[in-house]
């Protein structure tokens, strides 16, 4: 729980943080979209369809990053019996679920013209779907249990159980025969596409991160207000 003194000091700081994040997010999104949509040439294999990478890859990255942060929050919340990380996990969950849903949705729009199907039972696609189900499961579980401590504990245990899915998603395109293409951007490997697109995707990743951070801050404020209401 945010201590009362910190809470009273929050609005001005929150406003500054949100303004900075929105500014950085908008600038990087404009730059990323310009590079990826206007300057990058068409792909030799996939034509123009591959431009979906500008939103598909950042959404997928963010869904995994957010789940990873939530799992870390769960470790702190369970081990140290702390409230702030548990609150942070709850603030992250809906945005994480949205990112996983966007990853699957934009993936379907990419898959249809490329593979000829909206959906395939492929290791990476299934593991991303399981990630979405863990987000939804966490939200449903923590909303349903009225007792705050029990709700946080149950949510934390669910998050830790689901964390096994993260390496499965990451390695799914290397370990199993997969329709899904390999990692487009990986450290220490030349990217199989134009530099314009690589930078476009990285800038969009930054923009998505700024968006997610903004949503989390705004949701933290709402959760704190709701908790105040419950206490009053």
């Amino acid at each position, binding site marked *: 729980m945010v201590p009362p003194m910190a809470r009273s000091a929050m609005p001005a700081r929150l406003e500054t943080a949100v303004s900075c994040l929105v500014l950085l997010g908008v600038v990087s999104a404009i730059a990323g979209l310009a590079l990826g*949509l*206007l*300057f*990058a*040439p*068409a792909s030799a294999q996939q*034509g*123009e*369809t591959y*431009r*979906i990478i*500008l*939103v*598909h890859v950042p*959404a997928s990255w963010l869904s995994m990053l957010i789940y990873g942060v939530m799992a870390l929050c769960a470790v702190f919340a369970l081990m140290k019996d702390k409230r702030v990380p548990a609150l942070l996990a709850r603030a992250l969950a*809906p*945005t994480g679920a*949205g990112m996983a*849903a*966007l990853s699957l*949705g*934009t993936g379907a*729009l*990419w898959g*249809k*013209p490329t593979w000829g199907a909206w959906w395939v039972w492929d290791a990476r696609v299934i593991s991303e779907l399981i990630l979405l189900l863990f987000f939804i499961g966490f939200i449903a579980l923590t909303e349903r249990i009225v007792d705050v401590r029990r709700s946080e504990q149950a949510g934390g245990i669910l998050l830790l159980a689901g964390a096994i899915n993260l390496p499965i998603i990451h390695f799914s395109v290397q370990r199993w025969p997969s329709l899904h293409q390999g990692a487009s951007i990986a450290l220490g490997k030349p990217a199989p596409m134009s530099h314009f697109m690589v930078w476009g995707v990285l800038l969009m990743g930054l923009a998505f991160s700024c*968006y997610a951070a*903004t*949503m989390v801050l*705004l*949701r933290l*404020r*709402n959760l704190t*207000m*709701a908790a*105040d*209401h419950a206490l*009053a």
Partner: protein
Amino acid sequence: MPWHSLAEFIAMGGRGVYVWGAFGLVALAFVLEPLTLFWQHRRLQRRNHGQR
């Protein structure tokens, strides 16, 4: 720049529906989520004020 006209850019090599559909989906989500958070905030503000 690989484009010769605006029409060519919008058509996206005949795959415009998929490409713009994906961008539209993200844009819709990125408008709806902050909106619901603002509405929720306004509701909580009214409720907390009503209590005092």
